């Protein structure tokens, strides 16, 4: 089954979706969508550096994404600019740096588009191992920090007062985000990773009655979206990343339709 490039992409994509869903919920709850975007855009710089230093691409991406997150935390401590301006600067400058660096390495013949938008053909058996191994570690760590992270999401002050160390859970969460960006880059591409994190989570919100349920639902919806998107990509010969995002969008719109025509939203009060 692993012999066929499409099966490999499918298995890899499902692995990515299972991790992206629960993590994406926290990105939505914590309003970190643009933060995630910035980390993802910095991934291209990671690719360029990895090619330059001849190290594993995922390690390069992970390292640069962590560095970008740390840089943001440090810059935010000194209130020089509003956060959105800082994110904009970091997001686009790391992307541009990556593009320039790749351009300068004239001896390399790499397909830039496959990094930006994902590539079905690029997934190797080793990648699948890294996605499932890394994904299992990410989910395991997320389970460990779930309670303190959720408490900090509701209120950092409250979590700190009751002894839950919110700064530590936030830092661990950012490292997990960097790991997910690294393992999902080949499937969805750096420009679209955030949407795989956010759209299934946003869709799940309409059906979930609790945070844990929303995380599981987001993982499930992510799998549906990845499978649909990859088949679409194969069928219409479109890049895999955008195809997955379009599938996610369709599902999201369908969930809105349910509101307009279907049953009334479950009432909070009885």
């Amino acid at each position, binding site marked *: 089954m692993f012999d066929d490039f499409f099966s490999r992409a499918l298995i890899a994509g499902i692995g990515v979706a299972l991790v992206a869903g629960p993590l994406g919920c926290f990105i939505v*709850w914590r309003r970190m969508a643009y933060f995630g975007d910035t980390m993802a855009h910095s991934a291209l710089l990671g690719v360029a550096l990895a090619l330059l230093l001849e190290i594993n691409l995922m390690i390069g991406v992970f390292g640069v994404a962590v560095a970008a997150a740390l840089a943001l935390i440090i810059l935010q401590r000194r209130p020089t600019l509003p956060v959105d301006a800082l994110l904009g600067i970091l997001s686009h400058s790391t992307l541009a740096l990556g593009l320039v660096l790749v351009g300068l390495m004239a001896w390399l013949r790499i397909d830039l588009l496959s990094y930006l938008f994902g590539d079905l053909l690029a997934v190797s058996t080793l990648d699948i191992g890294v996605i499932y191994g890394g994904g299992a570690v990410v989910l395991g760590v997320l389970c460990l920090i779930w309670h303190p992270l*959720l408490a900090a999401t509701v*209120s950092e*002050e409250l979590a700190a*007062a*009751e002894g*839950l160390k919110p700064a530590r859970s936030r830092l661990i969460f950012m490292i997990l985000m960097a790991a997910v960006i690294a393992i999902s880059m080949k499937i969805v591409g750096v420009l679209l990773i955030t949407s795989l994190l956010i759209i299934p989570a946003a869709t799940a919100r309409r059906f979930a009655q*609790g*945070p844990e349920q929303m995380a599981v639902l987001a993982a499930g919806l992510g799998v549906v979206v990845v499978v649909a998107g990859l088949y679409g990509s194969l069928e219409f010969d479109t890049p895999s990343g955008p195809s997955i995002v379009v599938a996610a969008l369709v599902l999201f719109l369908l969930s809105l339709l349910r509101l307009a025509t279907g049953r009334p939203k479950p009432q909070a009060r009885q």
Partner: protein
Amino acid sequence: MQQIAPDIASPAEIEILVSGGDLGVYRGGKWLIRGVDLAIRRGEIVSLIGPNGSGKSTTAKVILGNLKPDEGNVSAVSGLRVGYVPQTLHINWTLPLTVRRLMSLTGRHRARDIDAALDDVGIRHLARAEVQHLSGGEFQRALLTRAIIRRPDLLVLDEPVQGVDFAGEIALYELIRDIRDRQGCGILLISHDLHIVMAQTDTVICLSGHVCCSGTPKSVASNPEYLRLFGPRAADAVAVYQHHHDHTHLPDGRVVPLEAAQSEHKSSADVPPDGRPDV
């Protein structure tokens, strides 16, 4: 001089849960608070009062350990379990969170204990409601329940009656006293509502960047510093609210008689129950 939990023998033996000495916080070129001393004992309700910007919340944050003081230090008994109701808490609507789930936010509790706590505070009927759909008063009650279900040694309540109507306010303060009586915890209460604070508190600390005056509600109410800060009419705050309620209103609208045990702190002046007396 201080109201203490019934199971504690004599004031001399009462354990100091947390104390701050000579606390100072310097931010943005000025001292938010300076030279603040306070101590909270087990079974004691300490209220911080003061105008806006007088450093009430800052003092609470320092006591909680969320803010490191630039001067002075805080010492707490080891293993102090804290329950906290912050001043502002906005829960993003994308987070599906029922009242029941909110209860185990910072620690796990048995379903039975959660039901009992929700019953105590009178919001059992809201257990399955999403917190974003609660009214101001219901939300404050839910936050209070969440804090007390931890069976804290120290309960810190920052403006716990915001967004609550007048009758609800009195009910909430009585609930807070009731919690102290039953659990024997120390309570640090922040409020700008002088009247009710004066009736429900053991020790009042009047802040204005520094401690203006402190002591029992009566002694503070007659202190010239207090009168200067809040105006002469504030002196009435103690007298007017030391009245006796013979019944109280539950959040779901039921009227229940007030237990005799609850009224130890109040005299029985004849003011209509729950009517707003003229100040």
